[in-house]
């Protein structure tokens, strides 16, 4: 089965401190996985890297066949496909619940 998310030897540092050490991960389509670990072990960082809210310094992250690099067009394409729920509530407080749900489909993917 083809993997939808692929991480190859991903490394990430926050300054001197290495958060992600040679992460290799393959997630195939429709597979559900749980990433667990003590706090500060890099779970959120890993997920943020897949959405490129954080940059990784070494290795490759491939989402749906698209490699994450400095190319912003790729990033926006991936971000509009990858769903992400944050630890803290990140509702947009100036919008209604309905607007919160419909904002991205209407403005990012141009659906009606």
């Amino acid at each position, binding site marked *: 089965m083809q993997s939808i998310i692929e991480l190859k030897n991903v490394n990430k540092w926050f300054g001197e401190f290495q958060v992600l050490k040679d992460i290799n991960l393959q997630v195939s389509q429709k597979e559900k996985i749980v990433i667990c670990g003590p706090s500060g072990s890099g779970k959120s960082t890993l997920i943020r890297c897949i959405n490129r809210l954080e940059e990784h310094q070494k290795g490759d992250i491939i989402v749906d066949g698209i490699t994450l690099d400095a190319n912003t067009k790729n990033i926006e394409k991936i971000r509009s496909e990858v769903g992400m729920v*944050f630890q803290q509530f990140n509702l*947009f407080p100036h919008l209604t619940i309905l607007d919160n749900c419909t904002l991205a489909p209407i403005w990012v993917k141009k659906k009606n």
Partner: protein
Amino acid sequence: MYPNDQIWRIDLAFIIFFFVIGAYFFVNTKIKKILFIFLTIIFPFLAIFLFHGGLFGLEEVETRVWGGLFLTLFISVFSIIFCFPIGVLLAMGRRSKLPVIRYFSIGFIELWRGVPLITVLFMAAVMFPVFLPSGTNLDKLVRVIIAITLFESAYIAEVIRGGLQAIPKGQYDAANSLGMGYWKSHILIILPQALKIVIPGVANTFIALFKDTPLILVVGLMELLGMVNMAKTNPAWLGLATEGYVFAAIVYFIFCFAMSRYSLRLEKQLKTSN
């Protein structure tokens, strides 16, 4: 002074202006939208046409002879309309990752904030035409409005930057994770929240702008206070200086108070948290 037989044009423009604003508070949202578009897009041109004339058989009245309360409102309204978008762009520019844009914004803001308004007005009125190629003539009033607009946009930029900084990083992350680019995330997510926070500061700046307009006296334009100053030298009104100044003060107060009440109202309307 503005020719007496043409004053009906100013009156007409302001009757339309206040009538539309008054109507704005009593109609439903659909008509409100139309009125808003009329006020922001059509009315400025209509007003300029009425004031200045020179077209369709209306006698031309040079800006040199414009004066009084009408000039106060004219300058403040146009400066406010123009300085706000420039301020927003400068605030975003100052937080930009691109060094050229960032340093340009910082330089612009610090330069205009570091100079007194009187100096800027003098420059606009006296120095600026020297640098223009001979033959080109930019109206003095236009130059003054541009000067005030740029001056105030620097202040507005800093106020808005404060609002942008108050938006939690999670909001940027959330917008980005939905696949929004820089402009989309700012227009849809960041700016609506940031502008809401800075309403008091922006209203403050606008009121200050309104009260700074008497400074145009130094370049020979007479707005409300300038008119009072001039009227008190008129022999027919000798000894009535106090009344004139008190009247001017009351007029300024009415407009400033109206602006401050409106900003409070806006804050309440846009309030979403409890």
